[in-house]
C-alpha cells in the first residue's frame, strides 16, 4: 500500500516479565494500564550536537543491533532546476570516501555484517547504517559511516559511472507506465515548485550535470545545522551520544536549508494523456494536499481512511474493485511533506475500461467531498486507526522511521504520545469542513498513461 502517508504508532518496545518481587508490583501496574490504553509510547530522548545536529534516540535493548540514520534537508526539492542532483549526490557518498574506493567501503561494511542505507526523496536525503552492537563490529560500522558522511571524495570515475547508471534509470522510467504517470502527475500538480523535480532526472538534466555541482550540493546541504540524527537500538544514552559524536562531529555547522516556497493550489483542472503500448491504463488523479503540522492534518488523515486509505474496507475498493471489478489496486492518500504534498488517487485498469473507471473515481470523490463519511464508516475507521496503533511501531525499523520524521519535520517530541488523542478529537464536522475547504473536485490533475486512439480494444 502506498502508506508513506500513514502516521500511526506507539508502544513501548520493552515489556519485561516480572524478574523479581520488586519488579512485580510495577509490572502489574503496567498490565492494568495496558488494559486501558493498550500500550505506551516509546520514550524519545533528544539533544543537540555541538555543531548543531538534532538527535532523537530510543533505546531498544531486546535485540543486539543498532540503527543510525542521518537525515538532511537535501531531497529532490533542492535540485534547483537540475533534476537528479540530489539523488546523484546521495548515491555518490559511498562511492569513495576518506581515500577508500567504493569497493573498500563496501568491504568494510560487509565484513562486519553492517548494512548501509541511503536514499533521497522529495524532502529528505538520508544515510544510515544497521549494525550488530558487539563492539568489534559496531566500531567498524560507525567509523565507515562517518567517512562516507563527512569525507566523501566524489572521484571522477565513480561520478561518471553513477551518472551513466542514472541515464539507464531514466530509460527504465520509459518502459514503466506507472513511473511515466507518476512523473507527469508530480509535474502537473506542482508546476514550477521544486516538488515537481523527477528524482532520477531527465535526459536533458543529466546532460547538464557536472561534478562541481555535486560537490557544491554536498557542501551546502550535508551540514550539521541541516541534519537530524535518529538512533534506535541496544545502547545506553552515553553510548548513543558517543556514537552520534563520532559520526557527525566532523560535519561543518553550515546552515539550515532555506524554506521552500509554498505550494500553490490548482487554479483549474488539467488532464495529461500519454500514449503507451500497455494492456492497462495507469491513472493518477489529485491535487496539492497537506503538509506536516498542518492544522487540518488529522482531519484529512481520518477523512481519507474510509475513502481510499483503508484497503479492502475503503469506498474506492468497494466500488471500483468489488462492485465493478475494474482494478486490482485502487487507493487514495495524502503525502504530507514540508510544504503541501499531493493528495493522490490511483488505479490501473484494462485499456477499454479507462473512461468508465475515471468517471467512477471522480464521481466517488465528488460525492465524498459533498457528503462526507457515513457515521458507521467513520466509526469503523476510528476503531481501525486507534486499534492498529501498536502495530505501527512494533519494530526498531518502524520506530526509526517515526523518530526521524518527527525530528526532520520539527514535530512535537510528544507527537506519538498525542497521536491517538489527536485522532480521537476528529469528528464528522471537522472532516466535512476540511474536505470542502481542501479538496476541489473541479480542479483536479488527471494523468492517464496507456493506449490511445485506435486499437483500444484488448483481446478479452
Amino acid at each position, binding site marked *: 500500500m502506498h502508506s508513506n502517508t500513514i502516521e500511526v504508532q506507539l508502544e513501548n518496545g520493552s515489556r519485561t516479565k516480572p524478574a523479581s518481587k520488586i519488579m512485580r508490583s510495577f509490572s502489574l501496574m503496567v498490565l492494568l494500564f495496558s488494559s486501558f490504553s493498550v500500550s505506551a509510547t516509546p520514550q524519545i530522548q533528544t539533544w543537540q550536537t555541538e555543531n548543531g545536529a538534532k538527535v532523537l534516540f530510543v533505546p531498544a535493548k531486546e535485540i543486539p*543491533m543498532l540503527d543510525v540514520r542521518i537525515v538532511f534537508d537535501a531531497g529532490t526539492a533542492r535540485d534547483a532546476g537540475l533534476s537528479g542532483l540530489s539523488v546523484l549526490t546521495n548515491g555518490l557518498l559511498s562511492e569513495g570516501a576518506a581515500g577508500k574506493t567504493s*569497493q573498500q567501503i563496501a568491504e568494510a561494511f560487509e565484513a562486519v555484517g553492517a548494512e548501509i542505507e541511503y536514499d533521497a526523496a522529495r524532502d529528505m536525503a538520508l544515510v544510515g547504517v544497521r549494525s550488530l552492537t558487539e563492539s568489534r563490529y559496531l566500531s567498524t560500522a560507525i567509523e565507515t559511516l562517518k567517512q562516507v558522511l563527512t569525507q566523501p571524495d566524489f572521484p571522477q570515475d565513480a561520478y561518471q559511472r553513477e551518472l551513466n547508471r542514472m541515464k539507464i534509470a531514466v530509460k527504465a522510467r520509459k518502459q514503466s507506465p506507472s513511473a511515466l504517470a507518476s512523473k507527469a502527475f508530480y509535474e502537473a500538480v506542482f508546476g514550477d515548485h521544486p516538488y515537481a523535480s523527477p528524482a532520477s532526472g531527465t535526459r536533458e538534466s543529466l546532460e547538464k550535470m557536472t561534478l562541481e555541482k555535486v560537490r557544491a550540493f554536498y557542501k551546502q546541504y550535508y551540514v550539521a545545522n541541516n541534519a537530524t540524527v535518529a538512533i534506535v537500538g541496544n545502547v545506553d544514552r552515553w553510548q548513543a551520544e558517543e556514537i552520534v559524536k563520532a559520526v557527525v562531529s566532523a560535519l561543518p555547522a553550515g546552515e539550515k536549508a532555506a524554506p521552500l516556497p509554498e505550494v500553490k493550489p490548482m487554479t483549474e483542472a*488539467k488532464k495529461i494523456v500519454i500514449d503507451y503500448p500497455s494492456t492497462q491504463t495507469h491513472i493518477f488523479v489529485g491535487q496539492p494536499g497537506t503538509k506536516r503540522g498542518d492544522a487540518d492534518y488529522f482531519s484529512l488523515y481520518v477523512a481519507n481512511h474510509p475513502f481510499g486509505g483503508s484497503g479492502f474496507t475503503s469506498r474506492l475498493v468497494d466500488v471500483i474493485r468489488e462492485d465493478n471489478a475494474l482494478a486490482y489496486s485502487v487507493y487514495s492518500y495524502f503525502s504530507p511533506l514540508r510544504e503541501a504534498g499531493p493528495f493522490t488517487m490511483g488505479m490501473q485498469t484494462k485499456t477499454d475500461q479507462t473512461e468508465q473507471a475515471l468517471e467512477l473515481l471522480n464521481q466517488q470523490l465528488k460525492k465524498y467531498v459533498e457528503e462526507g463519511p457515513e457515521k458507521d464508516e467513520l466509526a469503523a475507521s476510528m476503531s481501525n486507526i486507534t486499534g492498529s496503533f501498536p502495530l505501527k511501531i512494533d519494530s526498531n525499523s518502524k520506530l526509526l522511521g517515526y523518530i526521524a520524521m518527527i525530528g526532520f519535520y520539527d514535530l512535537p517530541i510528544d507527537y506519538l504520545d498525542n497521536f491517538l488523542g489527536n485522532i480521537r478529537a476528529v469528528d464528522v464536522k471537522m472532516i466535512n469542513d476540511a474536505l470542502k475547504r481542501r479538496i476541489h473536485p473541479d480542479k483536479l490533475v488527471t494523468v492517464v498513461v496507456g493506449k490511445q486512439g485506435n486499437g483500444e480494444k484488448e483481446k478479452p
Partner: protein
Amino acid sequence: MNMKSIAGLLAIFTLSLGWVLYNSDEPIPEHSDEAVQSYQLSNGMKILVIENHRAPVMVSQIWYKVGASYEHDGITGISHVLEHMMFKGTEEHPAGEFSEIIAANGGEENAFTGQDFTAYFQKIANDRLELVMELEADRMRNITFDEKEFIKELEVVKEERRLRTDDKPTALTYERFNAVAYTNSPYRRPIVGWMEDLDTLTVDDAREWYETWYAPNNATLVVAGDVLAGDVFRLAKQYFGQLPTSEIPELKSRHEAKQYGTQRLTVELPAKIPYLVMGYKAPILTPEVVGTEQEQELYALEVLAGVLDGGNSARLSKNLVRGQEIANSASASYGMTARHETLFVLSAVPNDEVAIEVLEFALRDEINTIKTQLPDDKELDRVKAQVVAAQVYKQDSTFYQAMEVGMLDTIGLPWKIKDDYVEKILAVTAVQVQQVANKYLTDDRLTVAVLEPLPNGTDDADNTDAVSLTGEKNAQ
C-alpha cells in the same frame, strides 16, 4: 499492503532474495524466546507458536499445502484465484465481512500464493487471537462460492496479471524464461496463471480446488508475538479441532527431466532496456537429504550465490557494475528451500552501448573464475558475516520469523533446520564452493533468456522537466 495477494511479488521475492531469505535464528544466547513450540490437533492440523513479548501484538498465519506447483495445465492460476475467493464470504460471514471485522479490530490482513503454498495472515493486537481463529476456522471449510462474485473476482485477478506481468517487460521475460527453463517441472507455470487459462476458469474449478486442499490436515497455523503457546493451543483446539479432515491427494513426484544442452529464448517486447537472465538447474533440500553429506552442497550453493552477489562488495558489483562497467545491475540468487528442483539464477541489465553477448560472456567468465580459482577466505568471511548478522536483524520482524517456519513446514521440511542454518553456512569451505560450481553451473543445465526491446513510442516522452511538459500536453 494494498494488494490482496502478493503472488507475483513473492515469486520475485524468493528469486531475488533467495539465499538471504531462509536464514534461521539463534545466535543470540539469552533471547531464546524465538523458540518454536508445536502442537498437533487430533485432526492433523499443526500449530506452531513463536513467543515474542516485545510489543502487545501478534501475527497469525495459516499455511495450506497447495500452490501453483500443485496445479496442472489448463487450470493454471487456480490456487491464486481461490486465495482471492477466500475473502468472498461464508454463510456465517458474508462477502467483505472478514475484512471489516479485522479492520474494526485494528488489524491488518492479507494473503499470498506461491509455487508451494498459499497463506493467509493477520497482524493484530494480541488480545484478538480468538477472533482471528474463529474467522479462519470458518473460512477453512465454509466458503460459499457465489458465481457472480467469482466472475467479478476473476476480472480483478486478470487486472492483477496485467499489472504485475503483462505490462512489465522484465517480469514478462522472467515468466517466459521459467516456461522454457523447466521442461516438465510444475515450476514452468506462472503462479498467477496464463491469461488463456484464467479465461476458462469457472466457479466450480475454484470450489473443487478448495474442497480438495483446504482441510485441517493440510494446514499449519503459525502464531508469533505476544501470546502464550498454551493459549494458542487451547484456542486452536476449540476452533479448528472440530473441523472434519479430507483425504488429501498424493501428488506424483514430477522430477524435472534431463536437459540436453543450453536452452535459449528471445523475448521481443516494447521496452527500452535489454535484460539478461541465465538459470542453471540446481538441487534443493529435501527431507531425505537433511543430515546427509549431500546437504552440504546446498549450503555451498548458497555461499556461492553470496560470493557473486552477497552485497555491494561481491563479485558481480565489483567486476561488472564497477570494474568493467558493463552492467547497470547484476545479481545472483539461489534458495535451497522448495519442493522441486530449482534454478541458480544470474540476471543483469547492460549499460548503454553494451551488447547483451558481452554481458553474458562476462557472467560466464565470473563462473569460470570460481570453477578454476578458489575464492579467498576474506570473501567467504564477508558472506558468512552477513549471514550471521541477518540472523540477528531478522528478529526485528515477527512476521518474517513466522513466515520462515510456516514456509519450511509447508514445503515438508523440518522447521528445526533453521536452527542449524548458520552453523552449516559457516562450515562451507572454498573447495566446496568450487566443487558445486563445477558440478551444477554447467552448460547442459543452463537456460538463457534475453529481452530484446522493440520501440515503445516513448523516445520523446518524459525527457524534459516539469514546465515544458505540462505546458505542451495539457488537454481539457
